[in-house]
């Protein structure tokens, strides 16, 4: 892998390589939100909180306790998953925007916690995290995550997630334990958030609590909504576009965020269901199936 990375870095400009790495990390993070919000229909606006838990846990473990890269990543992701369950429990009783508010609040509390967290360097943050994350590792992990996501969504669990979003009462009447499945969605989503956070920390070398504020959560949520809620290809596309957009908009330098904001409004007006809204893998299959039937009939 290292030699592969060495070869790649010889041929690709470091600036583009960096963008590609960030796209890979954002795909993993956005897929987590897609699972909770896009597929299961539970609005989360605090994903950066899970990300920060993964980032800090893995950074501290690899810097101060000598954990290997992989073990640190996994531990960070598991820690985030644990918090996902804790935050998922209010979903038993809360719905829609009340739930959104709780996720915002929880993420803010996590951020303030890290601002006062001695081992994490308080507001200064942590520097000197080993830079293990490379182009190859990120994309390897991202590919595995994408494949597992496809797997999961095509299983009885995936169907249960969609069922809860579509009609919770009918889902329960079909024997789906809606409470458990919703917590499961939060747990898996948070796991991916923590994993992305760990990858991010081991790429950036330096992290501090302000990296994981409300705007970060929103940025990630935008990828899912823009790409198309509940759609894996859409989420990947959204992560590509919204990671690239700020870079492309660098030409307009200080007007960058102005354009970004306007872009969101315009896209929502013209593509309210996202670019690939409702395009799921089986829709593509369905088109293929129809064609097959037609040719067979003729």
């Amino acid at each position, binding site marked *: 892998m290292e030699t592969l990375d060495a070869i790649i870095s010889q041929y690709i400009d470091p600036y583009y390589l960096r963008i590609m790495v960030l796209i890979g990390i954002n795909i993993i993070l956005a897929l987590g939100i897609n699972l909770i919000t896009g597929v299961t229909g539970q609005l989360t606006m605090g994903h950066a909180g899970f990300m920060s838990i993964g980032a800090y846990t893995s950074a501290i473990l690899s810097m101060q306790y000598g954990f290997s890269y992989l073990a640190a990543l996994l531990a960070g992701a598991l820690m985030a998953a644990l918090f996902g369950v804790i935050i998922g429990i209010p979903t038993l009783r809360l719905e829609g925007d009340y739930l959104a508010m709780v996720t915002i609040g929880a993420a803010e509390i996590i951020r303030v916690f890290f601002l006062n967290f001695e081992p994490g360097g308080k507001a200064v943050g942590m520097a000197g995290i080993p830079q293990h994350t490379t182009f190859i590792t990120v994309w390897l992990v991202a590919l595995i995550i994408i494949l*597992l996501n496809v*797997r*999961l969504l095509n*299983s*009885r*669990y*995936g*169907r*249960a997630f*969609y*069922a809860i979003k*579509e*009609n919770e*009462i*009918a*889902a*329960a*009447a*079909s*024997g*789906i*334990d*809606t409470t458990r499945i919703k917590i*499961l969605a939060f747990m898996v989503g948070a796991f991916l958030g923590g994993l992305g956070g760990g990858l991010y920390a081991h790429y950036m070398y330096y992290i501090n609590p302000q990296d994981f504020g409300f705007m970060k959560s929103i940025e990630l949520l935008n990828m899912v909504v823009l790409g198309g809620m509940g759609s894996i290809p859409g989420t990947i596309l959204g992560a590509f576009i919204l990671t690239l957009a700020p870079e492309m908009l660098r030409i307009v330098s200080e007007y960058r965020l102005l354009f970004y904001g306007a872009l969101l409004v315009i896209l929502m007006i013209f593509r309210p269901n996202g670019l690939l809204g*409702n395009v799921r893998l*089986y829709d593509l299959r*369905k088109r293929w*199936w*129809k064609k097959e039937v037609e040719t067979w009939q003729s």
Partner: protein
Amino acid sequence: MAVLSLENISQEFGGLRALDAFNLDVEESAIFGIIGPNGAGKTTLFNIITGIYTPTEGNIVFQGRNINQAATHKIACLGIARTFQNIRLFNKLSALDNVRIGCHGISKSGFFSSLFGLPSMLHEEKQIKEESKQLLTLVGLYDKREEYAENLAYGEQRRLEIARALALKPTLLLLDEPAAGMNSGEKAELMILIRQIRQDMKLTILIVEHDMNLVMNICERIAVLDYGRKIAEGSPSEVKSDERVIQSYLGAGA
């Protein structure tokens, strides 16, 4: 033996008594009808049986088990499936997926075997798909299996709900106004379907319905509800000739 017994069920909504000391015994493999005017408490009864509401008073006994406090999904897994008066399908999923979701309660694959696609899970998936296709064939929707549920015609949606409910392999099937909004041709087909389901799957069917003709035709036993109370019970001919039923259901002038 009674599959389902309701003992002294009462349900209050903020002082309003929707059901009042209601008793009912549904015999095994019967087609049992519940009729009554609007607001008589028929749908409330279904919501109590399926655990969406917990009754204020009384007991619900299903196959000798008290299910008063059981959650909706638990009751479904025990073998009570239902359809809804105001159709509740998973609109943005295909007809096939709607039925496959119906299999959730009786399938067993764990989270990790689903995630990694272990052979046992793939085998179960295959079975689910086969059974779902058979059910779609039964209700005459096989050719529409890849359509989104929301794109189906009204009558088709009602039949898809029945297929989804049957996917649970229930011992008791609750149909909440299955003929609502259907024309007479569709109603005739529905009656054949209901009889066939009972015969093929050996289950008990409880129907709440407005359409007198349908209920009188296929039900062996009928209970009449009015203002949350049972005012009559018996065979269709007994109910038809009952004074109180004629008074309250068909109106005093009838």
